[in-house]
């Protein structure tokens, strides 16, 4: 096991992809940013000054502190605090955990559904194919954000419900891509050969079809994480996403919006900026992956 992993690692290191990756400043920069973001999300709570969602750790005497170099600020709360004395930096760190969790798990769920339906449609064809693809066509004529909003209004707030909504919104792209590639791979001679020696369909799909569509899936999935994080933030901003008890960057922005008119710009500006950094880093990496792995997907 370890040996074969090592082998794969060595073949990756020798690949053109790896060489390009090492020479691309954009790819390296975005990976570094993502590593920092991930590190903060996992270990951040160890060194944030408070747990902003534990009401007992908040102190009203810390309320309305501006960000650090400004007059009257406290270096311990370098991004400032809101009207409840909540440290913005801590809130961002906690909120980013929700964002990343929903982005990654949402993509895992919807890619699983999309790949399953896409392979079914592409491999078996027939009425199943028409049914799935017509459904995809219908859904594609509606903007995802609108579908997500109305789904959430029907399902009600909650992390699980956001994941369900994202899964229902996002499967189409995966299904379409996977179907298209399955159709072309299915015509290959090695698939014919596998069929001739009597391999069952599920083995053909797992051994020969899926590995060949994997690169497109990786590219799509990367881009989709960014999209999902934006959708989650938007839903939470509108009060349709995660519940008030969960930390969320979108909800922080909406809290901040209410006090922005009183001059407390930092409550909404920093959380929003953090969303931008996360999504921008993901999209840059996705763009690099697309150019390297599958330029067709533009």
């Amino acid at each position, binding site marked *: 096991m370890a040996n074969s992993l090592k082998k794969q690692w060595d073949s990756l290191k020798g690949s053109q992809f790896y060489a390009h990756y090492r020479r691309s400043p954009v790819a390296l920069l975005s990976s570094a940013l993502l590593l920092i973001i991930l590190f903060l999300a996992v270990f951040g709570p160890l060194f944030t000054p408070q747990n902003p969602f534990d009401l007992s750790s908040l102190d009203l005497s810390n309320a309305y502190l501006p960000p650090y170099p400004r007059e009257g600020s406290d270096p311990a709360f370098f991004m400032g605090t809101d009207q409840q004395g909540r440290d913005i930096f801590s809130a961002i760190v906690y909120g980013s955990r929700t964002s990343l969790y929903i982005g990654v798990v949402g993509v895992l769920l919807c890619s699983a559904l999309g790949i399953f339906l896409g392979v079914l449609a592409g491999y078996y064809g027939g009425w199943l194919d028409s049914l799935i693809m017509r459904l995809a066509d219908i859904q594609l004529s*509606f*903007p995802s*954000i609108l579908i997500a909003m109305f789904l959430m209004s029907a399902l009600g707030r909650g992390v699980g419900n956001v994941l369900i909504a994202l899964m229902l919104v996002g499967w189409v792209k995966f299904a379409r891509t996977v179907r298209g590639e399955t159709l072309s791979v299915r015509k290959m001679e090695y698939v014919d050969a596998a069929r001739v020696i009597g391999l069952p369909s599920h083995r053909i799909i797992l051994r020969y079809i899926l590995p060949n569509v994997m690169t497109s899936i990786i590219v799509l999935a990367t881009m989709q994480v960014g999209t999902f994080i934006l959708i989650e933030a938007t839903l939470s901003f509108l009060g*349709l996403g995660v519940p008030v008890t969960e930390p969320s960057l979108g909800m922080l922005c909406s809290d901040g919006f209410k006090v922005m008119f009183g001059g407390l710009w930092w409550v909404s500006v920093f959380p929003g900026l953090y*969303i*931008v950094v996360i999504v921008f880093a993901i999209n*840059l990496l996705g763009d690099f992956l697309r150019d390297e792995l599958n330029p067709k997907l533009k």
Partner: protein
Amino acid sequence: MFKTIVQRFFQMVAVMIIVTMLVFAMTYFISNPVYLLLPQTATEAQIAQAEAELGLDKPLFVQYGIFLKNALRGDFGNSYFYNRSALSVILEKMPATLELVLVTMILTVLIGIPLGVFAGARPNKLSSKLTMAGSIFGVSLPSFWVGMIMIYVFSLMLGWTPVSGRGELGSILGIRTSLATADGWRHLILPAITLALSNVASIIRLTRAGTQEQMRQDYIKFARSKGVGTRQVLFGHALKNTLIPVVTILGLQLGDLIAFTTITETIFAWPGMGKMALDAISSNDRPIISAYLLMVSAMFIFINFVVDVLYTLIDPRVSLGGE
């Protein structure tokens, strides 16, 4: 040609019927509106009576039949909140949204297409690479946040524009619109820029890809060797052939724009149908929600239909019939 258009038309009708089912199911599962209309102290009998008045006690398929029949006549029931016909509320709010979308579209075309052409003509120049990075940055921005920043910078700090709302209305050709007055434009410009931002980003990408492809073609080399100026080559020759996919995407982006007006209008307190839809969601106003969804779906589906038909007209190589 005629046959494919007819075929496509019936497909459109079929899709619309499916959409009515989905909209009905969705609004049905949003919690019971009776509890919102009646005081908390209402008795069982009062609840049952209210449900009967709204027709909520009938079997599901009967309710759907009634819903469909009424929807075809444009009757979605009275809004619980405005207490008048949901359709009339929407029609009243629609012009505000449409003028916002129109200005956004114009901004998108004026900014996105030239930038895309330049980036595509010289893909290796630094300015071109910056444009591309900028367009990735553009799609990474949460639109609610952009709106907030716009308000903070341009309204609160600089005081250039009003904070929110729609300005004074004037009339152009008998249509009441804020495009007719200076005050109207001052109110409109921030929400329009906010809405245009991510749109511009994707138009830039698309135009660039198209231009890059065209620049490799022989007819471009021929035009150049003939001594045609760069500007003429780019905008007179290359752009013409890039425009087909760009026009398609612009059409499809109309749908996205209408979706995003919900967010932009909420932030800028713009009294259009997007804000109305979100308000309806939070106040559980079922007639408005279903009327809005059907109205917007009909628009999306119709736009798709038109784009498809236009596509066959512009580009004879495209056939919609066979797969």
